[in-house]
């Protein structure tokens, strides 16, 4: 397969098209503007539709409409824009409509800055809207992974009848690096559940994002809970790097994860047994990767995030169950984690003994 040198947001957009996405609605916000820009050119060429909505709220509801009509649809935005879309994401989850939401994370809260960060961990993994729903949420560490996960996201969305979230930090969205793109998929026929009127089918479908009665709503919640439960058994994705003999284990995802990976190599060159657990799905979270660490060997877990205060650390704590002390190396505001900070912190812990 041929490699090309491509920008993060554009590679994600192109992959979505190859995965069968034929509808995109969005509203501009840095640092993800390259995605709608790319879609505006590329989607019409394959018979798809691009809409720049009048707002984030309009855009996400257009995705709801397209998904309800059986089209693979997506939207993308960045942190404050995702907050605006969160009501619509909840409706997508409530109505169980396959779709992809991409959040190219920037610094927050509020306006924050337009620079990359990992401040939306909680939002992306636990509460992307009201009502206590869940999504599978991917956090790619390289552009190749972002491409592969975008492809997979549509498969999972269709499989589960549920929105999927891809949450690359802004560095992954902006970076250019070599990638191999997947093949074009055949566009599936309009699914039987789609709300497209009678047509030739002799029946109409009704899609709604809530129950008509208390009993019906509880049934909807219970069925969704079963799905979420299945994810925790079957769909957890995590990379364990040199953890087999590690005494100092980093917990990091996305760009922080790849930076930690080179820190592991550097520390091992200096004779320090470092390792990395890098979640690729943060929902479902790889609790077992942390639970299974040997607490007689691992001296510290070092949680590395571009978010202050740390967020993923809450899940790491749940996995570790108090058996191993946790330290942090953090940055925010758009400042990238410095490899030297990670190394200094680890060396200081080694000295302490």
């Amino acid at each position, binding site marked *: 397969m041929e490699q090309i*040198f491509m920008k993060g947001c554009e590679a994600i957009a192109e992959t979505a098209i190859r995965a069968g996405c034929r509808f995109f609605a969005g509203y501009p916000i840095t640092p993800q503007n390259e995605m709608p820009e790319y879609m505006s050119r590329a989607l019409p060429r394959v018979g798809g539709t691009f809409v720049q909505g009048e707002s984030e709220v309009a855009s996400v509801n257009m995705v709801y409409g397209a998904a309800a009509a059986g089209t693979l649809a997506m939207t993308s935005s960045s942190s404050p824009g995702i907050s605006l879309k969160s009501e619509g994401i909840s409706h997508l989850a409530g109505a169980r409509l396959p779709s992809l939401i991409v959040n190219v994370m920037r610094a927050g809260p509020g306006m924050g800055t337009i620079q990359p960060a990992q401040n939306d961990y909680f939002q992306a993994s636990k509460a992307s809207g009201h009502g206590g729903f869940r999504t599978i949420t991917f956090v790619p560490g390289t552009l190749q992974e972002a491409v592969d996960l975008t492809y997979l996201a549509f498969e999972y969305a269709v499989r589960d009848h549920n929105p999927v979230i891809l949450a690359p930090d802004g560095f992954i969205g902006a*970076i250019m690096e*070599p990638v191999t793109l997947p093949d074009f998929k055949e566009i599936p026929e309009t699914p039987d559940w789609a709300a497209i009127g009678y047509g030739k089918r002799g029946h109409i479908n009704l899609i709604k994002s809530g129950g008509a009665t208390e009993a019906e709503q509880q049934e909807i919640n219970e069925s969704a809970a079963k799905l979420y439960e299945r994810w925790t058994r079957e769909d957890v994705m995590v990379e364990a790097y040199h953890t087999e003999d590690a005494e100092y284990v980093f917990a990091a995802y996305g760009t922080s994860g*790849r930076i*930690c990976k080179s820190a592991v190599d550097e520390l091992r060159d200096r004779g320090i047994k470092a390792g990395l657990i890098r979640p690729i799905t943060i929902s479902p979270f790889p609790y077992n990767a942390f639970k299974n660490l040997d607490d007689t060997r691992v001296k510290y877990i070092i949680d590395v995030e571009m978010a202050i205060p740390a967020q993923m650390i809450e899940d790491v704590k749940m996995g570790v169950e108090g058996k191993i002390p946790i330290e942090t190396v953090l940055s925010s505001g758009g400042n990238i*984690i410095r*490899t030297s900070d990670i190394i200094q912190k680890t060396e200081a812990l080694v000295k302490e003994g």
Partner: protein
Amino acid sequence: MRTSLLVAGFGGQGIMMIGKLIGECVFEEGINVTFLPFYGPEQRGGTASCTVIQSDKPIGSPVSEELDVLCVMNQPSLEKFLGRIKQGGVLITNSSLVDIHSVERKDIKIIEVDADRLAYQIGSKKIANIIIFAAYMAIAKTVPIEKVKAIALTKLGKKPELVPMNRAAFDAGVQIAIASQC
């Protein structure tokens, strides 16, 4: 072997184009490479920079605290990033706009390229970045310069009317680089 390059200047000087072209050429040579842009909310006039990392191993951090090469297109960028060049590293300046009299470091190699003035002489101030790009590639020697030229002119081919000027700019940059190494 990992090398890091930072290119910096005003928004509008074609900083990103320099980094992207370098990335493209290095990629075509089969070397691992990342390009990471950094810019503020301003469309013009603010500071823009980008980092290009090249390595024979998979690239972890797409930025680098210590730089092998720094290319600066304006004075504020020199002041901001000078301290980050490694011992024995290289500083390439757009000497039309950058004054290096205040640089006290003796442990780095400095290459001055009068890029804006040369670009103006060739016919357009817009091609100053191509002169700097060519100078860098000629100094770095990671990719054969004829191959670089072919890749760059193809990438810049979207504006055919600028191709002759881009070619002249490229040659001028290479010449300066060669002269600076004599």
